[in-house]
């Protein structure tokens, strides 16, 4: 059982700053996800925590104890590598037993513990094989088994599911989450897949260019993105952004673009006007909060159908306003052809406003 504190972590590689003043706490037994696009510094952060990389600045505390200078082998953290890093010359059994052998546990205890985890991860029948005789999913479970067999204080997992096919990945997500809750081990999990982050995490850290963009529960990330980056990164398909001018006219708050003008809810508009650094703002609406309107109304906008993507239970409709393309998500089917003229409207309570200059959210 462990808590982890990271304070002002900085890691540079020559000119690039891979991790830039990152601070966060991980509670005991928490499933914390590090989410960010490729090159955002997730792996580097994880490796600093593991002790495989020496931070240039900042401190890392494990249960209140500074561990910057503690070598990896003494941190009692288990890591699942993105590449699995199974020892190719050892059998699955020996791979899983390796951490226990290093701790000089009695043979009988090693044996019972290896068999126990193998049972738990359903790889008992593979114990005699070498890693190269396993499928990707099996290798991944062996890597997991090697991590959990010694009941470490912290799990560190670097995109452990990224090499699996879609179906196995969905299955393993649930398994992994269940396993983590059963064992109650504090976990930091790296992924660039926002669906994985949203479904598995207790809390998520969104990283970009080495800087924390937001730290919060999946609910908070989705409903209250603190900036443009998080708003655009979380959610699929991503949020639609419209650039326009925010003005107050005759007691109404209007959002004006070159193509259309919308009236915003007064309260929200007031807050945004007060917080904005300039008059140019970005309006964000998620595809699931845009609808095809039956008839012209105060919030309807004329658009042209661009592409229809039927996904079975839902349909993604790409439409054009002016020369820009936006998306809406519709539960069920939509019967349109490219080029059709339609009217779209949106849910006024589900809009986001961001400052153009700072990217900061203006409403929450």
């Amino acid at each position, binding site marked *: 059982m462990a808590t982890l504190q990271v304070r002002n972590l900085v890691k540079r590689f020559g000119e690039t700053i891979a991790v830039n003043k990152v601070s966060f706490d991980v509670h005991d037994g928490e499933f914390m996800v590090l989410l960010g696009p490729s090159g955002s510094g997730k792996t580097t952060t994880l490796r600093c925590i593991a002790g*495989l990389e020496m931070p240039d600045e900042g401190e890392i505390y494990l249960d209140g104890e500074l561990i910057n200078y503690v070598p990896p*082998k003494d941190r009692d953290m*288990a890591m699942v590598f993105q590449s699995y890093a199974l*020892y190719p010359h050892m059998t699955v059994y020996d791979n899983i037993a390796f951490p226990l052998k290093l*701790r000089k546990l009695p043979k009988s205890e090693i044996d019972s513990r290896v068999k126990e985890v193998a049972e738990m991860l359903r790889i008992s029948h593979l114990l005699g094989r070498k890693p190269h005789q396993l499928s990707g999913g099996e290798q991944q479970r062996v890597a997991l088994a090697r991590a959990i067999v010694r009941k470490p204080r912290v799990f560190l997992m670097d995109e452990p599911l990224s090499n699996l096919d879609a179906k196995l990945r969905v299955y393993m997500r649930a398994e992994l989450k269940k396993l983590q809750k059963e064992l109650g081990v504090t976990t930091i999990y790296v992924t660039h897949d926002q669906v994985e982050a949203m479904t598995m995490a207790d809390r998520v850290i969104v990283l970009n260019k080495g800087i924390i963009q937001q730290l919060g529960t999946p609910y908070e990330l989705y409903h209250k993105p603190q900036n443009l980056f998080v708003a655009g990164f979380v959610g699929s398909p991503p949020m639609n952004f419209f650039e326009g001018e925010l003005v107050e006219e005759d007691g109404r708050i209007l959002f004006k673009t070159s193509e259309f003008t919308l009236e915003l809810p007064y309260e929200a508009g007031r807050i945004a006007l007060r917080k904005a650094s300039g008059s140019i703002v970005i309006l964000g609406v998620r595809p699931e909060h845009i609808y095809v309107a039956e008839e012209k109304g105060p919030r309807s906008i004329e658009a042209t159908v661009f592409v229809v993507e039927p996904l079975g239970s839902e349909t993604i409709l790409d439409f054009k306003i002016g020369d820009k393309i936006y998306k809406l998500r519709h539960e069920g089917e939509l019967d349109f052809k490219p080029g059709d003229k339609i009217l779209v409207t949106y849910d006024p309570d589900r809009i986001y406003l961001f400052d153009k200059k700072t990217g900061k959210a203006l409403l929450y």
Partner: protein
Amino acid sequence: MPRIRKKKNYTRKYVLILLLPGLILLVAVVIFPFLYTLWLSFLRWNLRFSWAKPHFIGLENYKNAILSDPRFYNSLEKTFYLMAGAVPIELLLGLGLALLFHTGFPGKRITMPFFLIPLALSGAVVGLIWGLIFVLTYGPLDYIFQVTGIWRFVFGGRVDLLISHPMGCIITADIWQWTPFFFIILLAALSSVPKDLMEAAMMDGASSTQAFRYIALPMLKPAIAVALIIRMIDVFKTFGVPFVMTKGGPGYASEVVSLYIYNEALQYLDIAYAATLSVIVIVIIIVFLNAFMKAFRFKFTGGG
């Protein structure tokens, strides 16, 4: 179908044409000399007696070599001394250097070439260098041993090492010459051990020594085996260093097998007998390597 067959013939012709230069070379420098040597070994033919025409005597040369040639056994013994004395140390030193260069240190790039120089030198040059180092009165070793008191405490006085310890001198030179061979092969092999495996071992609780012992070393095994095999064959061919440093002396005290064969062929001009010795040495090497590969459980085909 005819088209396919035509294509097949076409490629087969090219295969032959492309193989031909290699085959010719192989026949010219390996197969023909070997068969000729084999043929010579069944003859009586000594160039000193120019009037005596070579004639076939069957296995008599082999009988002589195996049953009544103590000098041959002596030369084999010296060769095995060299192997036992030099090769393990070369392996260990080479491995140590490879580890040092693999982990890296400041000045690594500049020092690297110096460790590879010996590889570029011929045995004769190495023999010359070390002969000059070991020689008494003006050799640097003499001075160092005098200053450090090694003469007095280890050898009980100043001695000519080339005479008192000729094999020791040859082994020293051989180690200097061939350690770089293990060094570069093992350095290349080390850099092919995936870094994340070593890191995984450390996360699993291994010290760097344990990570090396349990992860890197098993993966280096094939490279070590190949390097050892090459070197062990090579030891039987060691010629330049003893030839220049000691001439096999004093007496026959450092006459390794290739030096003895050389002496038989070009000092005593007994071509046929030298050929016989060569064939026996080849057989010894083959038997020896087979035993070694069994012991190492080494298969060239790879896999488990």
